[in-house]
């Protein structure tokens, strides 16, 4: 139900830094999540990643964005079904204080 994940990369700066942990709650109905939620998903090609949910399209695909300036967004990541989302972030456990 609740899991810890470790962030690898800097595309979610300043929300999440490389090496941070975050505690996340399993998501049963991804379509109920509000845009702006930070989610953990399994991308069909690129595997597990953390992104910010920016919305849905009419086919229930999810739109994603990175918080960092150079991070990938939906234009790079392609269409992803909402079911790819497995968890939503509850809070961050920073690597550095």
């Amino acid at each position, binding site marked *: 139900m609740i*899991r*810890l*994940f*470790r*962030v*690898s*990369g*800097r*595309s*979610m700066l300043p929300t*999440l830094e*490389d090496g*941070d*942990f975050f505690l996340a709650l399993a998501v049963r109905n991804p379509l109920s999540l509000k845009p702006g939620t930070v989610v*953990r998903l399994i991308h069909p090609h*690129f*595997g*597990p*990643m*953390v*992104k910010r949910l920016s919305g849905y399209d009419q086919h229930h695909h999810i739109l994603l964005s*990175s918080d*960092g300036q*150079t*991070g*990938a967004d939906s234009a*790079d*990541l392609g269409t992803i079904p909402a079911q790819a989302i497995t968890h939503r972030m509850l809070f961050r*456990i*920073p*690597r550095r*204080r």
Partner: protein
Amino acid sequence: MIHQFIEKVAGDSIDDVAAHCDVPCAIYDPAPLLISALTVVRMIDIMEELESHKPDSNIAYQNTMARCVAQKEEHAEDVKHEVRVIWGDYLKAPQFEKFPNAHELVHNIMLTGSKCKQGVSRDDALKLVELCNEFAELFWATKGVETKRAVCPYKPSLETVYPVL
């Protein structure tokens, strides 16, 4: 403190999630940086042209000048960004061995790009275009793609490197 504790007791069992900046998509092309470098020259040309004519309206003059300055700034920065991406993400040890001047060339583009942001020297902007041409030739050479130089079919009508595909 909490992070250290968790890392110590459960670090190995925690799954990584990627927050990588690059997918990687493997799409690299020096065309955008060349267009940006040409735009820097064009903006300086428009600014000089504007300055040489007595403005009908001071507000209109300032508006156009401000827009040109903003575009020059943006495109010079775009050059630096595009070069950095190719240098940092695409070029690797085998290319650096084959093209040992790559680092110096990229550094020169960075310096000249900044000069173009700071000033309005057309010579600096021309130098930026030439350095970008050399970088484009280097990039295509790493892929074994032949290049040619031709005058771009739009102002500022400068010699530009194109791949022969």
